[in-house]
């Protein structure tokens, strides 16, 4: 049941990602909501859970949007894993540490995309990923800080439900 819930959440996130421009037509790009999901997975379920859910998010992103498999898969799985690994050792639940994670993940995501598109297609991404990241970071940080509490609340409700308690998803709490 819990897996079904998170698959539906993943679906809704991508629907929102691809249709939110109706509501915010003045924004040239939208925050990367899939990145928020990968971050959440790492923070909530540790390295292994972050890797698994991040990989699922990234693969779906690849299939739905870019049509080039591997880019989002690697980026989001690595994000989930790294955040989970850091969470198990160093990270706190402070908003600042989450904001830093979101900023670093945004930069890493763009650099991975840049490196892979160069390596696979021999194409140059339009702008320097670092320059791009500078104005995408605030958007992604805002989205992560807004979305994470909602996702955590949903996860807590699921965990509280007795029927879902025995599922395998590891939790740090």
């Amino acid at each position, binding site marked *: 049941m819990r897996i079904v819930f998170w698959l539906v959440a993943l*679906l*809704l996130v*991508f*629907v*929102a*990602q*691809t*249709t*939110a*421009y*109706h*509501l915010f*037509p003045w924004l*040239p*790009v*939208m925050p*990367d909501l*899939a990145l928020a999901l990968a971050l959440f997975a790492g923070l909530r379920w540790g*390295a*292994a859970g972050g*890797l698994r859910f991040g*990989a699922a998010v990234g*693969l*779906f992103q*690849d*299939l*739905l*949007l*870019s*049509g*080039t*498999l*591997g*880019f989002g*898969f*690697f980026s989001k*799985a*690595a994000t989930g*894993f790294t955040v989970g*690994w850091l969470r198990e050792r160093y990270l706190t639940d402070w908003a600042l540490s989450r904001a830093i994670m979101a900023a670093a993940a945004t930069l890493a995501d*763009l650099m991975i*995309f840049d490196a*892979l*598109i160069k390596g*696979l*297609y021999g*194409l*140059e*991404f*339009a*702008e320097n990923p670092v320059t*791009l990241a500078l104005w*995408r970071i605030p958007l992604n940080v805002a989205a992560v800080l807004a979305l994470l509490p909602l996702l955590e609340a949903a996860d807590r409700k699921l965990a509280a439900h007795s029927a879902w308690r025995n599922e395998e998803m590891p939790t740090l709490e």
Partner: protein
Amino acid sequence: MGDLFRKYLNAVMVIILVVFTFALLLANLRKDSSTDILERAAVAIVAPFQNLAGWTVGKVFAVWDSYLYLVNVKDENQRLRLAVDRLAFENTLLTERFKSYQRIEELLAFPRLDTLPFEAARVIGRDTTGRVRMIFLNKGSAHGVARDMPALTHRGLVGRVTLVSATACKVLLITDVRSAVDAVAQESRDAMVASGANRDTLEARYLLANAQVAEGERVLSSGLGGVYPKGLLIGALTGIRREDDSLFVEARIRPTADLDRIEETLILKAAPQEAIAPEEWR
């Protein structure tokens, strides 16, 4: 054994991640039918929700726009815009046809774009992360849409269909870094390749140093390359730079279609070969 595995669990996971990524990247190169099926499935799953979201937002905005916000002006403006779009499109076609007739009097053989079958489609989603430039349309194989069909508006070329599910399709915009359109300048007839660069403008590549192009000159598809039929308006040249020691002129092309705001588009329901087939020419 279990302890050893747990000890190196993170390293094992990283190795698995790298191996899977490598396998997926290889799958791109092969681009077999299994990945195509998965992509189609992803689009098929998301498209109905995108349709619903677009419809809901559209209805809410329609109430505001039509009943609360300048009812008559809004309607009139919309009519006029459509008229301007249509006239601009017709003007492009007529100018291009006139120039072609002038050049080759005997050859009255041009693709009649206005007589080819079009399928009107609504934009139901788009990539908003800026990493790729693509849109989702609410028409698919059930409506006769197929891969590689060009999508355009009255203002100009939008892109080409890259993936089709039963009721939706994905269109790669001409501004995407993976897009390249063989093109020609309308006045000077200089050839170039209009390449996407994940920016709002395209790069005009391989424009020879002796090209007579001018700022603002229109760029049309040349019909070469096998995807886009001849004569589709791509955009206007801008930022032309000539350097003495370079073989090529540097220039950019500003798309005439407003790719960031398109809500409806036309899919040219003819394979490129059909579009320029002799029986379609006049």
